[in-house]
């Protein structure tokens, strides 16, 4: 199966007047296969969204990016090449559909702008939009197209956003917390829709969320991110059922449920680190119960079952 996206040692620094003030991405390595979904899971500030922003080439000017981004059969691509395929071969849906649509244009006008950009013949645009909206389950396409964003519910807007992302039949769809701003039941419908569409259209998906169960629903593989680096990755079932990295174990143990006795959730001590401080060695070490002296050095990537785990202590 062919690879759609491959990141090698992707790093991002933020600089003010030439001095690095923040290094939120510290070497991301990941690969997405055609037609498959990779889920990225992590807590606030771990660099999930920044990874998406970097792939799309939309980092602010104060950011410095290093490492390789390879896309489909194009090989390594520069930010200039990315500007060409952005919005056509790679599209993105965003966390908050209510703010992702421009309040003063109708949904139809905004979808049309994107379609026009894709050089679709003028007389075919209407039909295309109707079809796209129908495929995301919005049957009253005329009403939807003529609506302003504030007239539609969050769930409907997110469907419109997905329709927008599929106008150009992309190879890769990046979904950045697509269900976070929605009610759980609506979010679940959106997840189902995305899986169905993926089956039909065959795009690969990078699914970013802090919600482990949402990611587990749609992803074929999961990458757990902590402080700007992947600490564990592998097939969804494996990672969910046999987590290896202490952080992954902690994270899964922290999910509350009726089955777990009250007061017994795994509570990783401390807080998610702020990235203002530079990290030496394993970033998780200070919250880790397995911590040893070695942890002050960069942990190696070890293979356990079918997972890759960045830790000194597991698999010994």
């Amino acid at each position: 199966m062919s690879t759609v996206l491959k990141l090698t040692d992707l790093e991002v620094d933020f600089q003010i007047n030439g001095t690095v003030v923040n290094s939120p991405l510290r070497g991301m390595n990941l690969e997405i296969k055609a037609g498959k979904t990779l889920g990225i899971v992590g807590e606030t500030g771990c660099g999930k969204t920044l990874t998406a922003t970097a792939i799309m080439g939309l980092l602010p000017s104060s950011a410095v990016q290093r490492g390789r981004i390879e896309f489909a059969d194009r090989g390594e691509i520069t930010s200039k090449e990315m500007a060409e395929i952005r919005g056509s071969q790679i599209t993105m849906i965003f966390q908050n559909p209510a703010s992702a649509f421009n309040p003063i244009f109708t949904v139809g006008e905004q979808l049309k702008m994107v379609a026009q950009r894709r050089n679709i013949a003028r007389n075919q645009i209407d039909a295309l939009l109707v079809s796209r909206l129908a495929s995301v389950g919005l049957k009253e396409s005329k009403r939807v197209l003529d609506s302003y964003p504030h007239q539609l519910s969050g769930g409907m807007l997110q469907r419109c956003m997905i329709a927008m992302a599929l106008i150009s039949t992309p190879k890769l769809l990046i979904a950045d917390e697509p269900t976070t701003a929605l009610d759980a039941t609506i979010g679940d419908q959106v997840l189902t829709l995305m899986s169905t569409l993926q089956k039909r259209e065959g795009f690969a998906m990078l699914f970013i969320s802090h919600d482990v169960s949402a990611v587990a629903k749609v992803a074929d593989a999961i990458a757990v991110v902590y402080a700007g680096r992947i600490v564990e990755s592998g097939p969804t079932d494996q990672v969910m059922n046999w987590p290896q990295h202490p952080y992954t174990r902690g994270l899964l143990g922290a999910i509350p449920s009726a089955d777990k006795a009250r007061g017994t959730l795994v509570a990783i001590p401390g807080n998610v680190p702020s990235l203002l401080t530079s990290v030496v060695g394993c970033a998780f070490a200070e919250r880790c119960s397995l911590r040893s002296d070695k942890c002050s050095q960069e942990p190696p990537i070890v293979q356990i079952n079918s997972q890759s785990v960045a830790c000194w202590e597991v698999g010994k």
Partner: protein
Amino acid sequence: MLGGGQMSEVVMQISNVSKVFPSREKKEGFTAVNSISIDLIKGEVLGVVGESGSGKSTLARCAFGITAPTSGSITILGQDLAGKSRRSTRELRSNLGFVFQDPAGSINPRMNVRNAIAEPLLLAGQSVQEIDKRVAFLMDRVGLATSQLNRKSHELSGGQCQRVAIARALATNPQIVLLDEPTSSLDLSVQAQILNLLEELRRDFNLTYFLISHNLDVVSHLSDRVAVMRDGVFVETGITTKVINDPQHPFTRELIRAYSGVHKSDGVLPAGFHLDDWQDGPLNRWAFQNIDSFLPVARIEASQSPIDLPVSIDPAIDTLEIEASGNTYTLPELVNDLDTDAIVVVRKGVVVYEKYFNSMVPESLHLLQSVSKSILGALFAIMADRGVIDINKKISHYLPELLGSAYTDATIAQALDMSVAVNFSEDYLDPESEMTRLDRAAGWRSNSTGRDLGLRSFLKTLTASGEHGKAYQYCSANTDVLAWLISDVTGMSYQDLLTRELWQPMGAGSDASVILDSQGLSVGNGGISCTARDLALFGQLILGEGRAQGRQIIPVQWIRETFAGASPDVISADYLQALHPGGSYKNQWWITASQSQEIFGVGIYGQYVWVDPTSQTVIAKFSSLPVPVDPVHSRKHMALFRAICGVTISK
């Protein structure tokens, strides 16, 4: 715990509480909480779970005296808060604690941690020494270091702010604590810390929690009892494990499904549904009736003045005995054997037989498959008659995009008659056949090949295999080309054309639909779904030489040509001759060339419109056969139809 039964002491009684907010839209206002009653029992955790706008926060605010309810009463520890001044209820209020969602907003940004925690103690009139002692104790209990006493909220993390909020809530030793989304803005790992802390404090101080959250996981983890709230009412209340394991209300089930880690289909799609399998049995029983649940469709609109065919059921039809494939069946047996979803028989303009199966109802739409082609044929007759197109012109004349493809030199007429010579294998089961590629391009199958994105791009790739017009070769792609062509020439979508030219003039009773590909092009070869009645009505239109509602809709000439069949010069196909000796394919219709001169449209998995001019009968039949094409099924259908029409003759 609740097990105590008669020992349980009610600490808060909420009876018939409603809260109505004034509303711009509605004069009577918006009812956020609608007459809710529930008791809070000492030592329990009552969890209220609901989505945004369910009214759960409003309920909590009413219960804890933050806002006054519009009606109903709240009794806390035997006392009523309503109508009393803040001062006189201060003592009672010291039994209440509050923890809100927004950790930073819970603490006055100008106050340090010490003063924030001390506020309720100050109110209770304690001395500075007492306060400092108490604050130190609380800080320790919620896991904050004394070094943080002088910090302000912006110097604390979200989790720490929430710990301060909890410490303040516990300052006056309250009995009941309101937890309104206490962990919703925290990260998962911090949420776990706070949830553990809350449980620990509850045990140590014998607290009663009133927990509000949108997060079912949090509520089900922490609560003894759970109430599921929606639109201002509790739709389900009960012991947590019971509600979670055996939910009664559909919304509870939906909520639980949304929170379960395993991905289950969302109720619209049946279990085991996969885009690559939906056409085969048994999935097609559901799929053919529910195309719009998984494929994009556009509407073909019903007539404003629909024709309602008179009904006079002929009981004789059900008593027919039919010989087919070496067996003798009664008609109901054969109908059942052929996996029928619907069958409608119209004799001389009167409905004489009408049956629906597989949960179909008269209003249900069903996929026509290739019967759709016959409808396209009729549309082309109308457009040609009106001079919009010339069917003897080359297709590439109208669609220059197809220059270089198989359709460079083929005429519209040749495509209508299926005599285009094209490299196209109509093998429904071969994953690499052109037919399968066509399905992928139309979005009918999953497509991860990166090719054939949309019908247009697929159709351009078809190549010619010889001279056109010489031999009959059934090729579904021809019809898709024609649907593309007609909407390009007229500048109207295919569905709008059908609505305007055919569906409304013929008096269709229901909206029909047509499947769209990813680019919005209608799938002409088999994408229409309609009701059985409307399909019969269409057959009736053909039978009536194109007239309906007093208007000539389809030119007579064309209908006569169709009945006459294809020119004998065109080389036919063995399978066609085997089934219908002397039969042919003309204008997107099949011609039987039998004694009764029937013509028909047929779609895979058993879809038919059967027009018998001799007995003046039209039969519309929908089925969900397990396989696309099987000669045995075909013969059984012929036998069935002819038997039904035969009844007519015998009368």
